[in-house]
């Protein structure tokens, strides 16, 4: 993350990041925050134990283009229920990702992915996800096409 080439296109693009519900696992989003920043995004990190309201409020306030929800402790389904209604109620047009250990126990990830896609998430990531995959996905979903992908050297 030091002295990294980042695409200029990501600069000024705001993403909201946080751990939802009663979940206190902070290490993953700490790593994600650094990686997203290093890749040029403006990251608003809500930290752990963030409520659905906090996600929606932050996205509204910061005119965010994406909301990244992390959940590690196994209660993601319960904690995310209703989130997408709130997002549309707030009139937000954001890309939504969820990632981490999304089910309690030894789940079958395909099934878990289907569950969360059905809830409205644009992408669902498991705990093996490297930050680079999230960045690549954001670049695609926010149409940061290669035409715009001029790069700039950033020292973090």
């Amino acid at each position, binding site marked *: *993350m*030091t*002295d*990294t*080439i980042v695409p200029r296109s990501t600069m000024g693009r705001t993403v909201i990041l946080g751990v939802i*519900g*009663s*979940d*206190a696992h*902070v*290490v993953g989003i*700490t*790593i994600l925050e*650094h*990686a997203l920043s*290093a*890749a040029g995004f403006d990251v608003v990190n809500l*930290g*752990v*134990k963030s409520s659905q309201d906090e996600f929606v409020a932050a996205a509204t306030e910061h005119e965010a283009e994406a909301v990244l929800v992390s959940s590690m*402790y*196994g*209660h993601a389904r*319960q904690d995310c229920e209703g989130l997408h209604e709130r997002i549309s109620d707030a009139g937000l047009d954001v890309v939504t990702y969820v990632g981490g*250990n999304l*089910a*309690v*126990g*030894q*789940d079958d990830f395909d099934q878990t992915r289907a569950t969360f896609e059905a809830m409205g998430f644009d992408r669902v990531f498991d*705990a*093996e996800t*490297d*930050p*680079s*995959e999230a*960045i*690549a996905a954001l670049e695609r979903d926010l149409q940061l096409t290669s035409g715009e992908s001029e790069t700039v050297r950033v020292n*973090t």
Partner: protein
Amino acid sequence: MIRDRRLSTDELRRIDAELRADWPTAEAVDFDEAVAYHESLPPGKQFASVLEGADQPLLQPRAGVPRLDDQIELLQYLERDGGADLLPVTIDSYTRDNEYEKAQTGLEETRETGTDELNGFPAVNHGVDGCRELVEAVDAPVEVRHGTPDARLLAMVTFAGGFQSFEGGPISYNIPYTKEHDLEETIEHWQFVDRLAGAYTECGVTINREPFGPLTGTLVPPSIAIAVMLLEGKLAATQGVRSLTLGYGQVGNVVQDVAALCALRDLGEDYLSDEVTVTTVFHEWMGGFPPDEARANGVIGLGAATAAIARPDKVITKSPQEFQGVPTKEANAAGLRTTRQLMDMVIEQDIDIDGIARERQLILREVRCLLDRVEELGDGDVARGTIRAFESGELDVPFAPSDSARGDVLPARDDDGRVRIFEFGNLALDEEIREIHVARLDSRAETEGRDRTFRMVADDVDAISDGHLIGRPSHEADADPNRGESDAD
């Protein structure tokens, strides 16, 4: 501001009375009846005496499922097929937040759907009778393991429910587990828990208390963890706790881990009054695991080998399924047996590794530095000192989610894989000690031909799950082909 003084019986009664309103199951708690109940339990279920009387490290897994019948089956299985010496109930996250209503919903949903909708056992909801049913259904003593900042009601119900050991403490169950809990408040809450444990103890029912040593589980420098253990130990002892098990989470460097456990044991005995019986518990690696059961067994194996050399009183085992989610009972038992086999093969051997004394010296110096500062800041009062030290960042924990800690300190491994401090923040370590850390990390940076940046920390956080101890840049290529994408250095 709160002080480190023993709660009076009146205060204890008053708080107890208040808490009874929080959830209906509290009504069933009757202290005198509970003491009689504990006295009726066989010696094999007396946690403190089983632990303190053991001549080899005892093994204990983590395990919690929502339903009582499932929890009983799980613990019986871990006892029989895992050979666990001590058993746990791991409490669910809603209970940890005192959201007994949500826990109730989760429990009922679980009963209806048959799939677990909680990540642990909601002991308050199960109530005194549920707890006793559990305690009676197994042979080994059972501990409550949770992560609850305000564990007062949980303690009332579970102590009355027959459990004789209770994990946690005001710092260790605040800093790593919460966001907005005030440290002063959690100290106050834990004074109640510890006083309640003390009250049982005075009636002849020793309640073992176990501060949670691993903290955030992620590259915590040993001296920080040990300082927290001693502070919590002291706070508990003030309230009358007489059986204390101080914890430490494996960092993966054998010399540092053995040295830290020695230091923890020695300091525990020095720092705490002679009335307190101090034991130690070693947690197998608490950070991110490899996403592969075979490799996870390698991590567990190193924990077992380290335990055999350091000989703590207790070892908390991990399962090969740690990475993915709450393990199956089979995987949990497998973690116990892998640990047992390796530990038993090594424990009879004399293994004296060079450099342990020196590392231990360094840890002792660091802990003294931290504790002296707490003493100063509190004008001799541990409670005040602790609050002030965390406020100023003179005490700090890496990756702490809680607002009660600065979370400015950042760790990284040195060239030998020992955890050093990369970013000190305001940490109360003297210049000489800081120089040692800086020098060690500089020499690693040199080995790797890169600067000391957060990247190094991030690489170290991922290293074990990627198959290494140290997050060297050279490892990245083989660890994950996708990795390269985001870094052009």
